[in-house]
């Protein structure tokens, strides 16, 4: 072979030889010749029409079922910011933090609420989805491993991580989310008649995700809870430290407190509700909440007027499809009915 000094020629040559080595004739495989056996998807009019029709029928069916089930749901919501105006006014000023304020809201339930009844609190205009807010927590502290928030050194100066008034003692639970926990107490009482007022039995268990309660939240290990939290301060807006949240039930105390866990699962929108209690179906309430006179006795602690928000309390039953929203059902119905309509137009075109 002649000597080639031309760099370009040489390179081409090299390429060529390497090709020879790998058999110069390209492989006759279906893949390389782009001739893999294939199914050609063709959107034919009949196929699409029948597809549309089937989808439409399905949507319509689901939609109707959803609407029907949504109709069966009973829900009652009472906004109590205005009703408890005096309390709301008191809470405007932080100086009054230790003054207790209660508020009673009577209401009449005209129909029995069948089945499981859930008690929610609902906030309007509270942005749990603010960026700084969402991040203002320490998950490692909440599983009890990093109680003193050492891992969060970068947030050393962020609010609610160190207690500024106590030489920078770490706060447990730290962060803005925990600090702003919803701290109203809501008690529902059933007024059987004018003299007998009985508290409706409520369950505070089962309101959290199982994984939250048993995996994501853990108390630090120690003989008793209060010693476990030594060296930490309570969040500034809290009235009592975290290990005194529920002194009766150790499974509900500290970070494992259900209300706390529910609060820590931040909501996606400024208007949100969170599960507070479930009806304990005993005695009078085996069937659910019977019709009659009730009242909410609320210890009003959580200030909302300062951010022009509102609070309400919600009682609701549920079906298989969740709470009372016509939206999903309506959306399905509309989609379902619009499909055959389009079908009709299409078949005219053909």
């Amino acid at each position, binding site marked *: 072979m002649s000597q080639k000094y031309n760099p370009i*020629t040489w390179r081409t040559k090299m390429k060529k030889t390497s090709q020879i080595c790998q058999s110069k004739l390209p492989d006759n495989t279906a893949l*390389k010749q782009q001739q893999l056996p294939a199914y050609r998807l063709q*959107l034919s009019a009949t196929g699409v029409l029948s597809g549309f029709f089937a989808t439409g029928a399905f949507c319509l069916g689901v939609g109707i079922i959803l609407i029907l089930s949504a109709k069966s749901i009973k829900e009652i919501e009472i906004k109590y910011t205005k009703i408890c105006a005096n309390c709301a006014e008191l809470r405007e000023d932080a100086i009054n933090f230790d003054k207790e304020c209660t508020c009673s809201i009577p209401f009449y339930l005209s129909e029995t609420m069948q089945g499981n009844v859930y008690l929610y609190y609902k906030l309007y205009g509270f942005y749990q989805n603010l960026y*700084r807010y969402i991040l203002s927590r320490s998950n490692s502290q909440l599983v009890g491993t990093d109680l003193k928030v050492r891992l969060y050194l970068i947030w050393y100066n962020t609010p*609610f991580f160190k207690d500024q008034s106590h030489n920078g003692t770490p706060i447990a639970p730290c962060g803005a989310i925990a600090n702003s926990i919803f701290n109203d107490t809501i008690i529902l009482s059933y007024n059987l008649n004018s003299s007998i007022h009985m508290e409706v039995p409520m369950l505070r268990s089962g309101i959290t995700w199982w994984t939250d309660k048993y995996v994501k939240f853990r108390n630090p290990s120690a003989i008793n809870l209060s010693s476990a939290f030594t060296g930490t301060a309570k969040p500034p807006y809290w009235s009592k430290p975290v290990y005194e949240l529920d002194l009766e039930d150790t499974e509900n105390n500290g970070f494992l407190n259900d209300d706390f866990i529910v609060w820590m*699962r931040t909501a996606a929108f400024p208007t949100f509700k969170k599960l507070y209690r*479930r009806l304990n179906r005993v005695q009078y309430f085996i069937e659910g909440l019977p019709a009659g006179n009730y009242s909410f006795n609320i210890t009003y602690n959580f200030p909302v007027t300062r951010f022009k928000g509102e609070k309400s309390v919600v009682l*609701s039953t549920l079906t298989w499809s969740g709470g009372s929203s016509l939206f999903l059902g309506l*959306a399905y119905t509309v*989609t379902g009915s619009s499909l055959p309509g389009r079908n009709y137009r299409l078949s005219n075109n053909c």
Partner: protein
Amino acid sequence: MDCSLVRTLVHRYCAGEENCVDSRTIYVGHREPPPGAEAYIPQRHPDNRIVSSKYTFWNFIPKNLFEQFRRIANFYFLIIFLVQLIIDTPTSPVTSGLPLFFVITVTAIKQGYEDWLRHKADNAMNQCPVHFIQHGKLVRKQSRKLRVGDIVMVKEDETFPCDLIFLSSSRGDGTCHVTTASLDGESSHKTHYAVQDTKGFHTEEDIDGLHATIECEQPQPDLYKFVGRINVYSDRNDPVVRPLGSENLLLRGATLKNTEKIFGVAIYTGMETKMALNYQSKSQKRSAVEKSMNVFLIVYLCILVSKALINTVLKYVWQSEPFRDEPWYNHKTESERQRNLFLRAFTDFLAFMVLFNYIIPVSMYVTVEMQKFLGSYFITWDEDMFDEDTGEGPLVNTSDLNEELGQVEYVFTDKTGTLTENNMEFKECCIEGHVYVPHAVCNGQVLPDASGIDMIDSSPGAGAREREELFFRALCLCHTIQVKDDDDVDGPRKSPDSGKSCVYISSSPDEVALVEGIQRLGFTYLRLKENYMEILNRENGVERFELLEILSFDSVRRRMSVIVRSATGEIYLFCKGADSSIFPRVIEGKVDQIRSRVERNAVEGLRTLCVAYKRLIPEEYEGVCTLLQAAKVALQDREKKLAEAYEQIEKDLILLGATAVEDRLQEKAADTIEALQKAGIKVWVLTGDKMETAAATCYACKLFRRNTQLLELTTKKIEEQSLHDVLFELSKTVLRHSGSLTRDNFSGLSADMQDHGLIIDGAALSLIMKPREDGSCGNYRELFLEICRNCSAVLCCRMAPLQKAQIVKLIKLSKEHPITLAIGDGANDVSMILEAHVGIGVIGKEGRQAARNSDYAIPKFKHLKKMLLVHGHLYYIRISELVQYFFYKTLYDTAYLTLYNISFTSLPILLYSLMEQHVSIDTLRRDPSLYRDIAKNALLRWRVFIYWTFLGVFDALVFFFGAYFMFENTTVTSNGQIFGNWTFGTLVFTVMVFTVTLKLALDTHYWTWINHFVIWGSLLFYVVFSLLWGGIIWPFLSYQRMYFVFIQMLSSGPAWLVIILLITVSLLPDVLKKVLCRQLWPSATEKVQQSTKLKASVTAAPNTDRPLLKDLLPRPRRH
């Protein structure tokens, strides 16, 4: 490595200084000149190392990074990444840093690999052994060690290692033959001359004794210019000074031919050789798709900036109320409070930018690049484009232009070697009106079809026989062929009759074909020996003719003559030339019969030559001799005087006959051209050939049809009228017709339609291109373009290589900015290949220069059809879908951002973009008009872009508000528990992944198992990934916010319903639009899809012999 770097740096530095000195002095063989000679400034020259690599081991990382970040997209993402690092943003720097890092790494590895290959090639070349003369002995050294002043020996068929001054050769006359095919593409042999005073040095010892210095100019890239002088010192102390010109210079890259060995002295080495100076890297070509991609990117960038701006403004409007700015539950940090408002606003703006930066898809670039890279393999693998004769498949040099193949509007093709095979074959000769066809020898077999008209044995009579033999002798004598005796090498042109094989070498392939043809008719040209031409006649007797004069060929006369004296003492003048130049000088012979034959042959696309002779009586010859001698020695106007002399000599000829040589059209060239024209592509033929031949070829390959009205714009015509008039007249003719015709006729398909073909020659073109004195240079050009646009075919003949490029440029820059494709095989096509949007090289006979410089190289012209119609079409469809899809799918943002673009949805689209065949390959090939559907970047127009963007926005709205209404006011679980913001995000994201993937599934027309695997697989992967991601506490993450969110979501019935609903709703408009459009305004492609489907349903019947089905199956391997 390091050493070499330093050295090159030093050399560069020195070279920079050297530029002040305008000449260099070389001591031949490093011998100092005798003390009496002038003192020269010593200079340093680089060694003979060739460096084509871009990086070295040390500078790779910084240099490569720098080059990569010069790309605007990469730079943008770098900025985003830095912003994320500096300011506190909702997304972590990892989400944008990781893809960027990925892209950069992949590109760096690719480039590094390529550079490593270059290094390897360089090294191999630099280490090639070279023969040096050192102290009178022959030494082998590595090529890179060659230094200026070394004396080098080069053997036959070797390439010169550097630029040499030719000292002596093994040939007695001090000449050598050289081909410069790899330099300028001319495969003909050129003669170079050794320095007069040194040509006697034939041995190593002799040459070592040479004592000389060479003074020459500094290296410059012009291949044909060289000025220098040599001082040869002899014992007499008085140096002999000789001028040196380019005929003494042997260039690196050229190959020595026909000469056993030569000696030369190195004057330019390494990167200073003319070849290295001429080597320039190809400029990056960008495809139209990439251009529109960039435009879309800019639009999205604008959207992004405005989105960020609006959001910042809105944020501050919203925050203007203090209870929102800093509610009691969400305090700011101290530093945040103290920060300046403007600084804060700016930071917020940047944060929004970063947040929304996902609408600019970082992974699109990677995916597009990968699609192109992998996609180009399909071209290389294509069995249909493999040529078994040469054993060459297509080569893809640039994968960036795959989709551009689907966009071509103008094809510029070379004629010789591209349309034709450049394989001349003697077809027939016509002597006195009798047609002779030699036995077509093809692989040693006599073709049967030759027998019918073979009239050689049935001689028509004694007188005619004499004429016939004269004709053969004329052909045997009238040429400039050199014979190379070749006993051992199995030459391609073996003469079957004679015992030993000999190879004819000539600058004109026609001559070789003629002489070989005549050989088959019984007369063999043996050799030129001591000025006697020897011919072996039919009776195996050797006839000797004394060669008296050669009146060499030139393109103005278009003929050549020889004057010979036969053994009997008769003096003949044989003249051979184009019919138009012979007929006017003929006084005798059967002109009419021959003329009709010649014309018939010309129409068939054969190259015809006429042969005539004249007997000279000695007195006449004397006159001729003196005439020629006078012209030859003339000092002024020698050319002109010679031409005049020739004119006088070549007259009053007797016509003998005519020959026809076929430059065979490439297989299926006509078929291909027809298909291209049907596809709405305009085909221009640019050739350096003469008009008649070129036109004949055009007829043969159906570029011109019988009803094509030819318009000529040639020098001859322009001489008669002024350019201005000709142009206006032509444009009038053209426009009149096109005005009366409807647009439909653009197709040029209907047989009765009058279409125009334009023929223009190089001289006329340069007149048009020449800017006029009054400044209105654009005028003629516009007019010319106007004419061209209305012609279905254009033939440009007598084109210089540069003019070819000019034409391509002219069209490229015209108003519509059409996509051009140039195809050619020779070095003369390189300029046009580089100029056009897509350059295709035919791996042909004239060297690989064109193939090297092209973007794609194919073995045969016919492969262009598949390349354009099938591959181009498919790639265009694929890439446009890919780009649109990327813009579509990146319109949303939420969590999982990084992975979303890279892993969940990239693979399916990549696969789609590799596999999609919306119509079968066979259909595409059968119906070229489908190409029109995608012409002019149809699938990436603004309308389509807006449609996709709209679709994306619509889907985004559906996702967000659907989920929003779902979550607001509602409990979505049946156990009363509440979902948080992470669930919301996950839900939206799940819907999105499914929608986007299903949308792709809907767009896929071609479902292979790979598509199935990838589309369903990616959905499955998403689900599995989400389960894993949320199902396990990942120890390395400080937050576990996704923990169990996905599982929790799936455990709720309404969430499922929401997902299904949202997917349905978001896919609906697209499906609807598709079906409606298909029913109401089907495009040609869709019609074909429909009909294929019908056919396919017919095929389902037992009749399985249909070609369609058969073609779909893998064919048995051909051998």
